[in-house]
């Protein structure tokens, strides 16, 4: 047997040290580079982007006829003007009561690896159909929806344009999912003040926000999980929110060690997306900072990254000032509702 481990460990140690001198924090320029936006949106090989597919996907996303009661669209809860959320702690369920998890934003999901708070869907295509079928959300059985869409001439034309090589019947659940997923991949947050600063405009954000960015990457340790240009590693963590009986990632993996774990959300547009956390339990950013300063439940599944931080009042204000630089500029908020096929 060949034993490769010592050489590998030595090599990886070298690689880890490469960006800066060993033991020193990254330079401001190197740190900023970690937050540079990607230049292109990734689309999967089996669902490439086309203008017709984006148009169709947008119509479907905004169309209340996709629900059983013809009264709820994807956009009913993912409201563009509210950062693609709905501002509710927990959205009212179709069957009464509330859904058990807070509506997440759909900003920048093209770069996602898993979908839903618990990561139970492994593609946007897989994700797209579930709220439609879910009795508590859009409550629409797929066969009934296919019948309904096939009766709409505008959708027959739209699906044919979006999937020109498809065999009849062109309108299927799989193509419905592909079209919605294609549109969702185009939902990319516009350039923010923070992005302008990363791109070299030194005056794009305030001195307080610049201090907040240093805290974010340093003492406050936010970047341990909220990493990269989309401010999410995509990992799952138990951050010590009170147990509501929702196992989260643990149920998906059938792994008790992953109980109470939920996906690290993006922080893009975070100041406009209150309330916070998978259960919507924290009403504002100050409550979030209080949580991370020791207001969490300690238990066996608590993330190894959860260590209580201690911030001064000024540091809290700086951190919040930084988070506000991730806000979509007013002129770029919302999207025109599409004309729906008839």
């Amino acid at each position, binding site marked *: 047997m060949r*034993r*490769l481990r010592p050489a*590998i460990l030595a090599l990886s140690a070298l690689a*880890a040290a490469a960006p800066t001198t060993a033991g020193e924090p990254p330079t401001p320029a190197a740190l900023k580079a970690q937050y540079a936006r990607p230049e292109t949106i990734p689309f999967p090989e089996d669902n490439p982007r086309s203008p017709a597919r984006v148009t169709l996907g947008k119509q479907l996303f905004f169309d209340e006829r996709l629900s059983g009661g013809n009264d709820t669209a994807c956009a009913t809860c993912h409201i563009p003007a509210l950062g693609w959320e709905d501002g509710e702690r927990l959205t009212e369920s179709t069957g009464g009561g509330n859904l058990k998890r807070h509506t997440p934003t759909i900003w920048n999901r093209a770069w996602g690896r898993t979908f839903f708070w618990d990561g139970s869907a492994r593609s946007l295509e897989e994700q797209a159909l579930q709220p439609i079928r879910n009795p508590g959300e859009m409550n629409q059985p797929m066969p009934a929806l296919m019948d309904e869409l096939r009766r709409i001439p505008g959708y027959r034309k739209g699906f044919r344009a979006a999937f020109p090589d498809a065999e009849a019947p062109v309108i299927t659940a799989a193509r419905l999912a592909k079209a919605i997923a294609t549109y969702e991949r185009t939902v990319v947050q516009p350039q923010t003040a923070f992005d302008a600063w990363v791109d070299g405009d030194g005056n794009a954000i305030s001195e307080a926000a610049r201090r907040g960015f240093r805290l974010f990457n340093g003492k406050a340790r936010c970047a341990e999980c909220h990493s990269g240009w989309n401010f999410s*590693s995509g*990992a799952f963590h138990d951050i010590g929110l009170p147990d509501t009986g929702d196992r989260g990632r643990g149920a998906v993996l059938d792994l008790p*060690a*992953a109980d109470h774990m939920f996906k690290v959300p993006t922080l893009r547009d975070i100041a406009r997306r209150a309330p916070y956390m998978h259960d919507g339990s924290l009403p504002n950013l100050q409550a979030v900072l209080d949580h991370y300063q020791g207001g969490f439940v300690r238990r066996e599944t608590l*993330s*190894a990254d959860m260590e209580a931080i201690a911030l001064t009042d000024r540091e809290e204000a700086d951190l919040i000032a930084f988070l506000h630089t991730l806000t979509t500029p007013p002129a770029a908020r919302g999207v025109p509702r599409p004309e729906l096929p008839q």
Partner: protein
Amino acid sequence: MSRIRLALAGLLALTATGALAEPAVHEVSQHGKAFHPDTLTIAPGDRVVLHNDDKRVHNIRVFHPKLDFNSGKQEPGEPVTITFDEPGTYYVTCGIHTQMELKVAVTP
């Protein structure tokens, strides 16, 4: 005698070309929520040992038509071994830290 010599020569030739070599063991470290290295090219039958050198629990997963692997809970310090018998390209990930990705190319 000549038959024995021929057999020995054949055996030496096989060994020299690696045809009788034992499956290799490739060791990978997990630390900082990443695989090190993050790509491997191995032969069919080789084993990959994934060490959890992190301070956190991992859950090694492979989703592939030829290999559906789930390590369950992998505690820090605990190794997990995967044998790759079939040629192909596999992606090893962590069910908890899904940003972790190890690409394993198995080529004859």
